[in-house]
């Protein structure tokens, strides 16, 4: 389990850095909350409409917050040639990919854990008991987002205007995840359980599995030299 050990080691490094700097998590959290306010001002909701719009709005908020986190993902590595040092060390590059993916996943999940209940409070939504199920779907969607997001932020690492380029290449690829997550959440909010949305969930799972595998296989080619 060399890969796992190395992944945990790298993840620990990133977590420690985040703990001391508190940059990404706080900005992401405030941005997510800010988006909820902006949404509320932009749409004049009738109370019965909110439940219909909730999954889409929530996912938009997560998508934008996640992108904000991704643009910072390799920031620490860019400073002081840290990336070169990492690549010189006898680490498996797959471990680097997994660690970065997990780190971003962790940040996003923490933000979602706060923003979702906040959404329920701010928009006066009913059905608190559905939150665990909704969060599970969000988790699967976020995994898909983080996997491709990490790949793409590594790919755009050396590009000019990388912060602008990243969503440009990432969002079209994310369409299956966006659609599947929002449909699943809608079904849960309407019917109380997944019901006929199982095929969407399978699609989401398939997406996650395919791109985690592809990521581990080709990540060492992405970040070479």
């Amino acid at each position: 389990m060399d890969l796992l050990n190395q992944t945990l080691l790298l993840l620990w490094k990133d977590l420690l850095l985040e703990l001391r700097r508190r940059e990404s998590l706080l900005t992401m959290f405030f941005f997510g909350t800010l988006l909820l306010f902006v949404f509320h001002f932009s749409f004049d909701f009738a109370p019965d409409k909110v439940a219909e719009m909730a999954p889409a709005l929530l996912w938009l908020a997560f998508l934008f917050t996640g992108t904000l986190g991704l643009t910072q993902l390799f920031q620490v590595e860019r400073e002081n040639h840290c990336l070169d040092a990492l690549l010189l060390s006898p680490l498996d590059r797959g471990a680097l990919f997994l660690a970065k993916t997990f780190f971003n996943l962790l940040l996003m999940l923490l933000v979602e854990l706060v923003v979702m209940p906040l959404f329920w409070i701010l928009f006066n939504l009913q059905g608190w008991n559905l939150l665990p199920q909704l969060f599970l779907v969000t988790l699967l969607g976020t995994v898909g987002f983080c996997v491709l997001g990490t790949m793409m932020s590594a790919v755009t690492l050396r590009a000019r205007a990388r912060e602008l380029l990243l969503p440009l290449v990432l969002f079209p690829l994310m369409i299956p995840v966006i659609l599947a997550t929002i449909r699943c959440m809608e079904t849960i909010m309407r019917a109380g359980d997944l019901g006929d949305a199982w095929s969407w969930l399978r699609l989401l799972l398939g997406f996650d599995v395919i791109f985690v595998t592809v990521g581990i296989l080709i990540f060492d080619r992405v970040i070479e030299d």
Partner: protein
Amino acid sequence: MPVTQPLRRRRGILGALALIAIAVGLYWGLIVAPPDAYQGEVQRIMYLHLPSILAAYLSYFLVFIGSCMYLWKRERRDDILAHSAAEIGVLFTALTIIEGSIWGRPTWGVWWAWDARLTLTAILLLIYTGYLMLRSLIDDENRASSAAAVLGIIGFLDIPLIHMSVYWWRTLHQPPSILQPNKAPWENIAWPLLIPLLINIVAFLLLLFYLLSLRYRLGEMRDEIRMHRLEHSL
């Protein structure tokens, strides 16, 4: 290395063949073939629409192959192939969307509808424009190549997933006219309509390979210039 004369001649022949095939295909499709029983004259756009989307898909497949080969072997030629095919794929995809719009206006009454196949085509255009943009925004040539190769692979693998999701999301496009699961292709279309379609498919494939060979040569020439500059600066 200088261009060998036979290669250039072969490219010329390919171009001439493409031109002739397109002329014959257009003549047959627009003048010889009878108008469609239901859709009338508008249907003739199919003779361009179907071949151009086929050419686009083939281009993206070539991008995928070129990208895989490049990441594996690091040969310049694979990268040039992927880059060339991506540019041509974007061209054909854009053409497909424009033709589809022109057809959709009289048939559906709107220029654009959020139907599954239209959406899929538009997403393809977005992915591969992103691919070209990524290439142009990375200064280091080798890094641009491997970054683009990764996107070329992931983008192609994503197509079936996007396809599935937008299909479940919405279907309004008429079901595929010719390739249907329960019938052989030639039972769904009358011969007088099938012949010009086939000619046009061949014509567009010839055009694709002609453009590809030109664009590939351009990529090679860029590499040669870069090598010369490097030698000069040493």
